[in-house]
Structure formats: structure tokens, C-alpha cells
């Protein structure tokens, strides 16, 4: 019987069918962070429940941590309280915590993979919607809320409805200056921000097969921006090569045995899907969002929409988005002035992202009116980048070089926009107020495009920067 990876992983982790028709699903890896867990631990205490599989939960701190000065106690009392609560909860439950002092801290979706915790064939849950990132390894990974974090802590299980599976096949060569970020922004633009509701997206095709794990993570990360709670890529040699030698990956003979099982979990060639979409990689250009949801994007050579050319029903939301962003109907996106450039987030703050951005920046300087910062996704990424001298490339160009964390992606920490600042951002959400100022404006793009915008002081076409290739 042929099956998709989704079906195989679901089946392997099914405990039983619940009375209401849902499935009780075993969660192989539970990742937690400081923000969405204190209430969950409190609920457990109130009910007198313990943590059932403490060795299958791994904690780190990312959302609230400052990125400029990470010495404890934090200057921000609420951040310090939240971190202390996580430390207490982890200590009491016997949960391993990768804290600021340890060298392995970082954004939860960056450290899971880099420590080899994230593996093919697993079910992974985390109280964060970008948990879909881990699907890059052929895991079924999804975000949950705090009550479900409580459920996983208490039982290592969740009550869930199965998802349908849509295969998105990307074929052909990406053009120069076009990255994984552009591919996923293009997919979201085509399928819409709610097109994936009820689905897991399986990303396939020769373009995806040629991608590194970092690139696959960027794509899976933003599945949720397309409405899909989970997205995945079938595990292959690229996946196995990435995992070999990582701290929590199997080693020796066990690694070969693991590869056999991982390979067996991939979708069968004749698996059936609930939908299929074909994407021509060669037609994708560097992409920039112009609006207030991640589906509102254009190629850098295009203009933003005109309200009078839209369907009548769409006009109010188009008007709202253009007004919020301070953009005129039909204006070219290129040349839009920016105030802030942010390279960071679980979408695009891994070593390869920093390398691509550095390629554009080397020997150039950030425009005088632009505040630019690079926030590595983890302490390990930061250290690896420093070993290559990337920190100097950035700082000599006028970027600030920060400690690891979520930073300006969601502004739960001191990094935030002010007033109506416009930010060229390598993050994942351009929602109103997302970057900390209620009236702040976010333009999502690839890290290389952020680098180009930082130098030009406005949205620019990365393909015109000589080093881009």
C-alpha cells in the first residue's frame, strides 16, 4: 500500500482513535521556549500532573531575550522573570534547557536541527507556529497553543485531526539572486495565505531536491504563512549528510540503521495526494511583500497593485494595506525607501543566510539613514560566522552584530521599529504592528535582498549587485 510521508509518520505515532473521531498522536519531540510555557506548567501544577516524558522535551530561550546585552539578570524585569520561570520549571521537571550561558542557545527552530534533535520520521510539536520549519527533515512538525503544550507535557500526546496532503513540485533552475525565500513567498502569493488550511504541504521537485537543508528549512518555515500548519520535504542524502555527526543524531552503526528507517518513511513514488501544484522555478524573481500579510507580494521588478483594477470585493482590504504601508496605487516596489534592515529570525538567520548577505555587503556600506542589524539564529551560528570573519564584514559595512534570539521579528524584546519606520526584513510576517511599532511597516524579502536594500537605502534588485551569484 503506497503512502505519503505524512501518512506513514501519522500511522507510526497513532496511539488510538478517540471517541470524537480524532487521533491520539504520540509526539516524538517536544520543543519549548519561555513564552508559551509558563501557563502550561501552571496548569499541570493546578491539576497535580507531572511531565510524563521529560527526556523528550527540550527547552531554550529565544523570544524575549535581548540581543545586545545578554548578561543576567536582564535589565528587563519581565524578561528576567519569564526566563527564571522557565529555568525553575525545567529544573523541577528534569527537562534539558539550552540557556544563554551554555553556547547552544538560539531560536528554537534553529537549534533543534543544528543539535540533531530534529530527525526524519518524527512527530514534533512546539508552542510556536513556525515549528513547521522542522518538516525540512521529513518530520511532521506543527505549532500548538499553551493548552496543547500542557497536553504534551502531561501525556506526550495530542488529540488531532489528520491533515490532507498537497504536493508542491518546484522544477527547474532558480535564477541568479533568487533564493528559497523567494520560492516560498511565490508559493504563498499563488496559493494564498489560507490556501493551506487543512493541509500539510509536501515540497518536492528537482529544485527542492537540490536545495541545502538551510534552504529547505526556509521553505518549510513559512508553510504556516500559507495557512498550512505543517510542511515537509522527503528525507534524502542531503538530509542524512546534514545529520551525520550532530550531537543528538545517532552515530556509528546506528546511523546506518537510522538512515534505512528514515528512507523508508519518505513518500512512495506512487503515493496519492489531495492536490498537486506545479511551480516553475525559472519564473520566480526576487520577491518583496508590499502589504500586511505575506501573500501580498510582488517581484522586485513589478509595481504594487492598483485598487481600481481589483475585484470590487477585494478593494477595501487592498486600500487598507496600501494606506497602512504608505504606498501609492501602482507604484514600483523598487525604490521604496527603508529605515531599518533586519537580517534574522527562524526563517533566515542560519549560516548560509548570513553568508549570502555578506556576499552582497562585502566592501560596501549601509546607507547613512538606515539602521541595520544582523541577529544570528543561534549561538552556534554566531560563532561559526565569526570564525569565517562574517561579523567583521557586517560591522565594517555598518551593521550591528548581535546575540542570538528572535529579535525584531516579533519585538517581544528591546529590538523594535518606531513610529512608521519601514523595515526590510528577512523574517516571516508583515502583519500590522508585528515588529513592535503599531504603525511600523515590514517588507519581507530574502537576506540578500535585505542586504541590498540596506546599502541602497531603498528596495533594490539584488541582481544588480555585482557579487550576487
Amino acid at each position: 500500500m503506497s503512502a505519503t510521508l505524512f501518512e506513514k509518520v501519522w500511522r507510526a505515532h497513532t496511539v488510538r482513535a478517540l471517541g470524537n473521531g480524532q487521533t491520539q498522536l504520540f509526539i516524538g519531540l517536544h520543543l519549548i521556549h519561555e513564552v508559551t510555557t509558563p501557563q502550561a506548567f501552571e496548569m499541570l501544577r493546578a491539576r497535580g500532573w507531572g511531565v510524563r516524558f521529560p527526556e523528550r522535551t527540550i527547552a531554550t530561550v529565544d523570544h524575549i531575550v535581548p540581543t545586545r546585552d545578554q548578561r543576567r539578570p536582564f535589565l528587563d524585569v519581565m524578561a528576567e522573570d519569564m526566563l527564571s520561570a522557565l529555568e525553575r520549571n525545567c529544573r523541577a521537571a528534569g527537562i534539558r534547557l539550552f540557556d544563554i550561558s551554555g553556547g547552544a542557545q538560539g531560536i528554537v527552530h534553529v537549534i533543534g536541527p543544528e543539535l540533531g534533535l530534529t530527525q526524519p520520521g518524527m512527530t514534533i510539536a512546539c508552542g510556536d507556529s513556525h515549528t513547521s520549519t522542522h518538516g525540512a527533515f521529513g518530520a511532521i512538525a506543527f505549532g500548538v497553543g499553551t493548552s496543547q503544550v500542557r497536553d504534551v507535557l502531561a501525556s506526550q500526546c495530542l488529540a488531532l485531526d489528520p491533515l490532507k496532503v498537497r504536493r508542491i513540485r518546484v522544477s527547474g533552475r532558480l535564477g541568479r539572486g533568487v533564493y528559497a525565500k523567494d520560492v516560498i513567498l511565490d508559493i504563498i502569493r499563488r496559493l494564498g495565505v489560507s490556501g493551506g488550511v487543512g493541509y500539510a504541504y509536501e515540497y518536492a521537485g528537482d529544485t527542492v531536491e537540490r536545495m541545502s537543508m538551510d534552504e529547505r528549512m526556509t521553505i518549510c518555515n513559512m508553510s504556516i504563512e500559507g495557512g498550512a500548519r505543517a510542511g515537509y520535504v522527503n528525507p534524502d542524502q542531503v538530509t542524512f549528510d546534514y545529520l551525520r555527526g550532530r550531537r543528538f543524531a545517532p552515530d556509528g552503526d546506528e546511523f546506518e540503521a537510522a538512515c534505512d528507517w528514515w528512507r523508508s518513511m519518505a513518500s512512495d513514488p506512487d503515493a496519492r495526494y489531495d492536490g498537486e501544484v506545479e511551480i516553475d522555478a525559472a519564473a520566480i524573481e526576487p520577491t518583496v511583500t508590499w502589504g500586511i500579510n505575506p501573500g501580498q507580494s510582488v517581484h522586485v521588478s513589478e509595481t504594487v497593485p492598483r485598487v481600481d483594477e481589483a475585484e470590487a470585493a477585494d478593494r477595501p482590504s487592498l486600500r487598507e494595506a496600501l494606506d497602512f504601508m504608505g504606498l501609492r496605487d501602482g507604484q514600483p516596489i523598487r525604490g521604496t525607501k527603508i529605515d531599518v534592515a533586519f537580517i534574522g529570525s527562524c526563517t533566515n538567520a542560519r549560516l548560509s543566510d548570513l553568508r549570502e548577505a555578506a556576499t552582497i555587503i562585502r566592501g560596501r556600506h549601509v546607507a547613512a539613514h538606515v539602521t541595520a542589524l544582523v541577529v544570528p539564529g543561534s549561538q552556534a551560528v554566531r560563532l561559526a560566522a565569526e570564525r569565517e570573519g562574517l561579523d567583521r564584514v557586517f560591522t565594517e559595512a555598518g551593521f550591528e552584530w548581535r546575540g542570538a534570539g528572535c529579535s525584531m521579528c516579533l519585538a517581544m524584546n528591546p529590538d523594535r521599529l518606531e513610529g512608521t519606520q519601514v523595515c526590510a526584513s528577512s523574517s516571516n510576517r508583515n502583519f500590522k504592528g508585528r515588529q513592535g511599532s503599531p504603525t511600523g511597516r515590514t517588507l519581507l524579502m530574502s537576506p540578500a535582498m535585505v542586504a541590498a536594500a540596506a546599502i541602497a537605502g531603498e528596495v533594490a534588485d539584488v541582481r544588480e549587485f555585482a557579487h550576487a551569484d
Partner: protein
Amino acid sequence: MPIDRIAAVEGTAIPLRGGNIDTDRIIPARFLRAITFEGLERHLFEDDRAQAGDHPFANPAHAGATILLVNANFGCGSSREHAPQAIRRWGIRAVVGESFSEIFFGNSVALGMPCLTAARAVIEELMQQAERDPRRELRLSLDALHVVSGDRSFALTMPAAARQSFLDGTWDATALLLDKYDEVESVARRLPYLRGWS
């Protein structure tokens, strides 16, 4: 835990227009910095309220409403349970909309706040009614899957499992998941990454 069955919600409605209203708008991230959910309702739609002079959640005519009316893809974005927590703590007991983001829907189930869907035209009619007559009482039934307004009844839909869990009082899933725990242990024992690879 006592069994808490939810079969009906009655009360006035508050109409919130707009597609793709994300959880950052429902409750901006800066209000997620506390280690409890207490008081979140005070910051519900805080930035939207400040920017729109006539936001429904700032309109005293809708104070005390128990049914929230929304458009499509409501609650998209971040998985923060703070969003449905803030809505429920404000006083909302059920949400009726064109469609919901999956994580928001699941979070709402977990805290006992059903989200039901209706056709676009139905939502539009209910919204207009609530705007015209904010004191009009609605009677929503999960059993009958409809909402009654005056002498009219509008059909609602809801995934079968979620509906059943409200009618059974099993929407708080933890106890259910801890029941028959030997079956969980046996799944853990057969997964190679837990059992050992050799």
C-alpha cells in the same frame, strides 16, 4: 476535572469586519511578556482600537456581547493561545466566521470556546443585524448547528470531532490523553528513535 458540556451559547453579537485578522492584531506580542494570561482582555485589539476610531471592541453598544462575528481566515499567524484567551476573557463564548486558521481553532477548542463557520452571506447578514441592533439576542446551538436570530435560523458548520468534544464535555483533552496510558507506552516502545536503532 468536572465534565463541562457546551451545547449552546446565547447573547448579543459583536461584528468584527476584515479578512485575515492575525493573532498579532488580536493581541500584540508586547502583551505576551507576562507569565499568566490574566488581564489579557484589557489589551484585546489594542493597536487596532487605537488606530480605528470606530473599532467594535471600543464601542460600548457591544459591551457584554458573547458571540463574535468574523470574516475569513480569522486568527491566522502566530500560535499564541493568548489570542483566544484574550477574546474569551473579554467575555466571548463562541466565534462565528467564514473560516478560521487551524491553530487558532484548536486553541479555542482547548479552552472551551467553539468556533463555527457560516456562509459569507450569512455572516454579512448577522454583522449588519448586530451593527443595526447591538442588543439583538442570538441563540447558537452546537446540537442543531444553527444560530437563531428573532424568527430566523441560519445554518452553521463545525468539524465533527470538535463539535462532539463540546457536546461530550471532552474538549479539555488532557484527561482523555492520559486514559489507557499503556497504549502510549507501547507506541513509544516501537518507535526506533526511542527504542534504539539496533
